[in-house]
């Protein structure tokens, strides 16, 4: 996820580094379920544009009056955000990309700031790259015309060039500058493009298709149990089905309203027993663990089963947004921490830890799909994968033959260990999302 979203609303997703023409993005919109999709790429790209105009420009945008074509030199009036560090003024229009570095100043290692001035006519992305390796060392997204923004960097010895990607224009790479010495270079990564993400996304969609087959088999079984009055079997099959659904975390976004029908929850001030429109796994969970009769749950079981079948059928024509893959690997576990480790989504079964373990499956699956891309981009990948495995193994110790320890029954030491695993996983997943953020490279 980039800190600086595009300055213009994402009218055309392809422009935003989104889905290429052969793979239109899924319909945007809230999933209807509990997933907040706080970091939905398409949503933030649009909504945050306003924020950029108001605040994110930090210094320069304010100084020049927003996005307009004000060509007065803003550097003169802007207060630098970074003080006490060497600053170098760099021009980043398509015709002058990278001008100002090397020629007049002495390139040097260490912490320093480039004051990027967009003298071009439209907004631009600016990357500091190593032209030899193609790695990106720093980026500024959506630099509005006529504005200056600071790019703090810690430079090691090596070759660098600025790359300017102005809207609707081919990318321009400025002159290569050599920074002398033998100071090791800082963190960098080759960018990930939409094209890189298409194969893993297609593979992941295939994986989801297989889960959907499982899901509708499970909801069918659950319906049969309830229709036949076997509540013990229903509780068992409920868990199996719910966990299958919870493994599909990265796809919810694509499900549209179906997620709410299948896995919705109710607000805290609403009595689940009398909540209008409360359907799906959690509604059935509430009944199964609150002594409701089989007969009273038949309608709910049919609704769930129908929804699962419809989802499976619709999936054939659904397409996931490749740009979301890295984010999802991370967000699944954020949601797990937020909703499962707090037992917010517990409607009586006390199986939040099982759900959390299933969520880890979901995150792992995406990571496995992304592994070829991450292998040489995220040095922490193997460690992260090991952490997922360890965390999941620990969660599974709370499964006693299908009965899981409810979150609230964990001892303090157990609780702390679970929290430590999740905190650890999340800190390691943040780089995955950052690295897989799509950067337009042409």
């Amino acid at each position: 996820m980039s800190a600086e979203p595009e300055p213009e609303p994402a009218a055309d997703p392809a422009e935003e580094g989104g889905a290429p023409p052969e793979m239109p993005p899924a319909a945007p919109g809230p999933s209807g379920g509990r997933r907040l999709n706080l970091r939905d790429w398409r949503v933030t790209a649009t909504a945050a544009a306003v924020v950029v105009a108001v605040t994110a420009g930090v210094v320069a945008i304010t100084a020049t009056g927003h996005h307009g074509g004000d060509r007065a030199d803003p550097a003169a009036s802007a207060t630098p955000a970074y003080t006490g560090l060497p600053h170098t003024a760099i021009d980043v229009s398509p015709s002058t990309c990278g001008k100002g570095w090397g020629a007049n100043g002495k390139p040097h290692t260490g912490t320093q700031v480039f004051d990027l001035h967009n003298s071009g006519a439209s907004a631009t992305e600016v990357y500091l790259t190593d032209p030899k390796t193609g790695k990106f060392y720093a980026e500024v997204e959506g630099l509005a015309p006529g504005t200056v923004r600071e790019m703090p960097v810690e430079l090691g010895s090596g070759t660098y060039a600025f790359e300017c990607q102005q809207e609707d224009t081919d990318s321009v790479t400025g002159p290569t500058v050599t920074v002398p010495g033998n100071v090791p270079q800082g963190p960098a990564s080759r960018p990930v493009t939409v094209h890189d993400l298409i194969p893993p996304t297609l593979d992941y969609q295939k994986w989801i298709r297989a889960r959907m087959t499982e899901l509708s088999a499970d909801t069918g079984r659950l319906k049969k149990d309830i229709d036949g009055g076997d509540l013990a079997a229903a509780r068992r099959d409920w868990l199996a089905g719910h966990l299958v659904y919870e493994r599909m975390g990265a796809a919810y976004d694509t499900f549209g309203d179906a997620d709410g029908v299948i896995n919705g929850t109710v607000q805290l001030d609403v009595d689940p027993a009398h909540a209008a429109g409360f359907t799906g796994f959690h509604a059935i969970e509430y009944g199964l663990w609150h002594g409701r009769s089989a007969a009273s749950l038949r309608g709910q079981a049919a609704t769930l089963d129908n929804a699962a079948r419809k989802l499976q059928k619709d999936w054939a024509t659904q397409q996931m947004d490749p740009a979301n893959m890295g984010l999802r690997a991370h967000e699944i576990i954020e949601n797990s921490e937020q909703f499962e480790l707090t037992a917010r989504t517990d409607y009586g079964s006390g199986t939040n830890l099982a759900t959390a373990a299933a969520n880890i499956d979901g995150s792992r699956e995406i990571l496995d799909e992304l592994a070829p891309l991450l292998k040489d981009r995220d040095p922490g990948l193997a460690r992260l994968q090991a952490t997922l495995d360890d965390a999941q193994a620990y969660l599974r110790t709370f499964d006693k033959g299908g009965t899981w320890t409810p979150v609230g029954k964990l001892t303090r030491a157990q609780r702390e260990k679970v929290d430590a695993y999740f905190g650890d996983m999340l800190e390691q997943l943040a780089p995955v999302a950052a690295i897989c953020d799509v950067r337009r490279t042409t």
Partner: protein
Amino acid sequence: MTSDTPGREHHGDLGRRGFLRGAAVGVGAVGAVAGGATALTAATASASAPAAPKAAAAPFHGAHQAGITQPVQSASVTVSFDVTAADRRELTELLHTLTERARFLTTGGTPPTVGITDSPSDSGTLGPQVPADGLTATVGVGASLFDGRYGLADRKPLRLTTMPEFPDDDLQPAWCHGDLSLQLSAPHTDTVLHALRDIARHTRGGLQVRWRMDGFSSPSRPSGTPRNHLGFKDGTANPDVADPAVANRLLWAGGGGEPAWTAGGSYQVVRLIRMLVEFWDRVSITEQERMFGRNRDTGAPLDGVHEFDTPKFAQDPMGDVIPLDSHIRMANPRTAATDDSRILRRAYNYDRGMDSNGNLDMGLVFVCYQQDVERQFAAVQKRLAGEPLVDYVAPFGGGYFFALPGVKDRSDWYGSALLA
């Protein structure tokens, strides 16, 4: 950051678990932000030297940790952690990381850039560059760290135990004890919270917060030592630990059969004490003052005129002026026999919303340091048993910790001698 940044640890392959975020250290740029830091430094309250107008930032490196002899500051957070590191190796890595974070945060500088490889390395709540802002970090270890988990059983400081329940206590398990204590203090709340957030972020796999209490110290009203929620100046009478002879006799541990690694450390006692302020406000001023033995307006002992006048208990053997059961008289009878039980107090006020009965939930984060927790804090606490004040206060949490020796230089780290 470049891999030769001084002080940066190369964790390499930690084995089984990741458990700590890559502890990249920002570029030390104290000079770069010194202007900002100076501008932000405000007058600080004072425990041991109340008249001192502005405290110079305590250096991070030294024989002792910062935050012990320095005056209390406006904002603080006191946290107790449990260590979830799997083994001694991970504990060692954890303490390295903790040291690096504390060193960076208390020194200030430009947070490392991460390019496109990660979310930003700093929360940004103090702006693009982190001012030191007088931040101090004080780290202690609890008795539970010396259980079997890390092979440290034979290294426990001699007097370090689990905090016992004293007669007037009403301890809540969720608010007691812990493997590791951390107190952060600074002139501003944002500085303290920024540091807490940063440290938590870098240590999630190895540390989990057990309890946390935020505290503040007020400005002088109208002069002298800041007041607590009961309206009395709190922190007036403290041993003069600026005198090395006093500090070596009362404050710093080491010698006397203590493990060698403890030299330069100090026993830290944290007591979370609820104050029944509504009840207190319904007590007559005479009774309030006789409970403490001091005048509420000036802070002077009841036999004196000025805050720092010394009470003359010997001249008032029957307690006609300063009652025999007053807080100051019981806490410190000022006799030769009780002289070595004196403690260095650094209390903060806390305020955390409302109680279930509609009363204000306020109190004291009582913190004191001493050479020997039995000979000093415990002795004072026992003398105070049953004092009239106990009707208005209720200790419910806290713990005994041992504040580690200082981090000596850039290559040293918290607990280096303990884990050597």
